[in-house]
């Protein structure tokens, strides 16, 4: 699980323009919304394509994406639940 978390963090830092260094966010920092990193829907698409390339997990449903892309932790959990990583 820890290795998946590190790969998710790497994905965030390389594919997105984050307001903070990835080292400054916790695994539970909200990725979206003003209380978190403030990512938008285009960032979400970028993340979804990145996750497909990195882990082979496919997310096409918006409702699933909203649940999965909550934080580094929720993404890593989803990757693991899909038997990927």
């Amino acid at each position, binding site marked *: 699980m820890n290795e998946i978390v590190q790969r998710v963090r790497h994905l965030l830092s390389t594919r997105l323009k984050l307001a903070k260094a990835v080292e400054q966010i916790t695994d539970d920092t909200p990725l979206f919304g003003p209380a978190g990193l403030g990512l938008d*829907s*285009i960032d*979400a*698409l970028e993340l*979804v*394509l990145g996750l*497909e390339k990195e882990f082979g997990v496919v*997310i*096409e449903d*918006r409702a699933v*994406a909203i649940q999965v892309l909550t934080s580094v932790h929720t993404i890593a959990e989803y990757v693991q639940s899909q038997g990927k990583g």
Partner: protein
Amino acid sequence: MSSDPLSRLPHGLSFRFVDRILERVPGTKVIALKNVTCGDPHLQDHFPGNPVMPGVLLIEAMTQTAGLLLPDGSSAVLAQIKEARFRRPVFPGDQIRIEAERLGGLGGLHRFTVTASVDGAPAAEAEIVLAQTQAPPA
């Protein structure tokens, strides 16, 4: 809907930058042509005596080509242009071959990789995100 595949584009004729579809796999990949002529209105002043197709219109042609892959009846606007590169200028007499491939999507967003070439030589490339503004009819 008309049998003309280009009628999928919502643009009026004066702002249509795709002339012909060579191949289209719905939702996946499309190859189209755009012929550039010295009669094109935007080339009269870009530039006087030295006509060059504006890079933004090349991007427009690439975007319209990508739009041919959207679901029937939907319309969309540009949401993002990434990694755009212009490899060579495009002149009157050139035939631009544009290839667009859908990389994926989420909600109403669709990401495409698009290349434009003239006589086999790369002219431009970009990753383009379109945001659907109108869902296809149920």
